[in-house]
């Protein structure tokens, strides 16, 4: 497995997200705010975005399910969703919000429901894309570090074992857990992502 190859696929993947309009310039600005002293910044911000959005989407679903729909409330939720998706750079989600607000003004429940459906779809899409992007990034970080001379032999072995499926998933998880934490002080968050990714995609990269 070649690290260079992995890196290229990562870059290509990211470019496609921009090209297809999932992400816009605001996301790039977020990336620029990340640095060595703040290495999990983008992931943390996007995680907050996921949490907030899911909450809002739930609220919207409930609000539109009422016999007497409070359109002012619905509009307020959409407004908030528009703000956060815009800040994070989730362009397609943001773009769904404008027609949604028009529907609210018209006080039309049906069109609102359709807008909600659309926004949910866009949200799930971008969520999936971003998660894959992160996992690819994390994996690169771990595997890329294999080339460093500070990598100890047992840790390299652990990763390889997981990749080739030699260790059972739970053993692999244990190994990786200890390696990632001791060697690199990865947070739980990152470790989970790495492990997920390895088990989802690992084999096809070999």
């Amino acid at each position: 497995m070649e690290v260079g190859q992995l890196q290229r696929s990562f870059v290509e993947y990211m470019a496609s997200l921009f090209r297809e309009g999932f992400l816009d310039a605001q996301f790039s600005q977020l990336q620029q705010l990340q640095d060595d002293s703040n290495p999990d910044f983008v992931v943390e911000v996007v995680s907050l975005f996921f949490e907030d959005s899911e909450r809002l989407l739930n609220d919207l679903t409930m609000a539109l399910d009422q016999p007497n729909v409070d359109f002012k409330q619905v509009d307020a939720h959409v407004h908030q969703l528009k703000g956060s998706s815009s800040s994070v750079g989730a362009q397609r989600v943001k773009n769904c919000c404008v027609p949604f607000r028009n529907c609210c003004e018209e006080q039309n429940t049906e069109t609102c429901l359709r807008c909600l459906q659309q926004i949910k779809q866009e949200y799930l899409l971008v969520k999936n894309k971003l998660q894959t992007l992160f996992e690819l990034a994390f994996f690169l970080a771990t595997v890329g570090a294999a080339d460093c001379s500070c990598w100890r032999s047992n840790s390299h072995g652990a990763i390889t074992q997981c990749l080739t499926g030699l260790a059972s998933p739970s053993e692999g998880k244990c190994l990786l857990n200890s390696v990632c934490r001791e060697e690199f002080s990865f947070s739980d968050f990152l470790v989970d992502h790495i492990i997920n990714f390895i088990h989802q995609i690992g084999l096809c990269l070999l």
Partner: protein
Amino acid sequence: MEATQQAERKSMNKSTASARANHDVRASLAGISGLIWMCRVQASPQSELVKYLDHMESCKNDLLDILNSILDENKIEEGKKQLKEEEFNMEELLEHVVNIYYPNGAMKNVDVLLDPCDGSIARFSRVKGDRIELQRILNNLLQNADKFTSEGHITLRAWARKPGFEESSTLNTSNSSIGCMPCLRLQNDESSAEVRVLNRVQQDPNCVEFIFEVDDTGKGIPKEKQKSVFENYVQVNDQTTSVHGSQAGTGLGLGITQSLVRLMGGEIGIVDKQIGEKGTCFRFNIFLIASDQPQLQEHQAISVNCAKEEDLESQLGGDYISNDSYYHSVASDNSITSHQKSNVILFIKEEERSRVLRRFMMNVLGLKVHVVNRHEQFPQTLKKVKGKITNSSSSSCKSKEIPLSALDGTDIDISSFQRRGRGLRFILIIIDTSDGLTREMSRAMAELRKDFPKNVSLRVVWIDKPGVDEDKLPSTDIVITKPLHGSRLFRVLKFTRETKDETTSRIKTQQHTLVQDVSVDVNGHSSKKLPLTGKKILVVEDDRMLLMICKTAVSKLGATTYTCKNGQEALDEVCKGLSEQRDIGSSTPSPPFDYILMDCEMPEMDGFEATKCIRKEEARYGIRIPIIAFTAHTEKEETDKIFQAGMDYYLPKESKGEEILKAIDFIEHTKV
């Protein structure tokens, strides 16, 4: 004949042999050096191996040092040592050398200080001579003092004077500020090289004699051993502490030191201490070529009697010999009489340092010094001093007015003003807070600052830690780190010569040089300054994600960021910041934040409401903090609302680094 020739041959052989040995030993040491380096490359960074390699390296360095000192001694003995002549700064050298030993001393509670004596070094600080060898002499003496002293202090004293022509070969050691010391005679020495140097330097009209003392409170050297310490390879008590290899020493140090001192035309000896004083005091003198500093004046004996009005200093009686000579002195038109109104309150933990500073400030600078020895005395001393100046300032105010035009920098001659004895008064408080600051002391400080007479300058110098949160200190306060001697001391003393308006205008630059100023950016590297370095910014936003983005963006630009979740919290923060200023009693409160980034829509209290309340509170202090609104709406009615509430600018909610910076720039440029 045969015997002489043989002796000569032996001596020659010895020289060649030692030269060869020197070469061989060096080659082997170089080999070891290279091998260590190669091992290091192959070793893994955090391993035990690296630690062993480090140790090996330091042993190798020690060997090299020993070799060098043996060779140097040979060179000097053979009269082959040549002294270099380069220009250097004596004050810097002294401070540098003392500061090398300061941390070591601090670790075992031994204070290492530089005593300015009569301040004469400052006058002759530009010298020409062999800096490295002089440093070696001082190093050797200080190192010995450090080795043998486990409590008390080590003092380096230095003073200079123009030699009288008849003193070319004897050392006249009487010095009024230090006291009588036994005379040391230059020993007759056959070495021709020394005699040549002696004559040359001492015949130069710019020749200046420098006298140094290294005084410690350590083990001391018994009288019977004192002569022999200067002999090579003799050590007193070499069984003592030998923690590191390098401390063992070869017993060559003082021998070389003596040879070097003689090479520089002087002599070194041990000075007898008073009965009951322990430790050793080495004194030596050398002759160097020094240029007289042009800006500084000669010794001036100023009689205090010329000042007729109520004068704190005259209560002491007697004359002072004031010497204008501390370096980097401000334009000398501030004449000496300005000192006479200056009071210094000195609270320094280290006894000897406190004594030395007091002596210097009183005898040499003519300041009135109140020494506080224990923190219980601090409040009453402050009260006493404030009482005195309040009384005398109120009476002098009646009789003499200082026209305001004299303070605004127009061409009224301040110095002539002061020469008439009407100098601006000054109080300088130097507080050592390394043991912490008691509540009584803080209260006493606040009490002092309250209703402080307007025509008196007050400056507080905190040593080590400020008494309160550094941000809340008035901007005239200075925080410096120990040790307080040399350049740091002189910078502090320079404040006593400033006029009041100079004090306030100089604030920013002084703090920059004296405060431990390292601008650390988000990467944790001390780097060039970021656009918002040193600024305090409050971000008010209820959405977690947006708050995180904004906070990171602002911090990355270098600012210190504070956050609040809604308008009410923001208002509380601002009110707290403003009232804390008032508690400290500063006459010109500084705003608690440089900018506020405020979201418009928030629960509990929104941005508009919060801004209105903040503006009202600020008005009571005469402050206005620029507030930038974050809004999701850009329609006119929204933006109108923004300005009506009292905000200065607005930005869309998604704004990150660039736009925020632009907004701040805009505000800065439109400020009148």
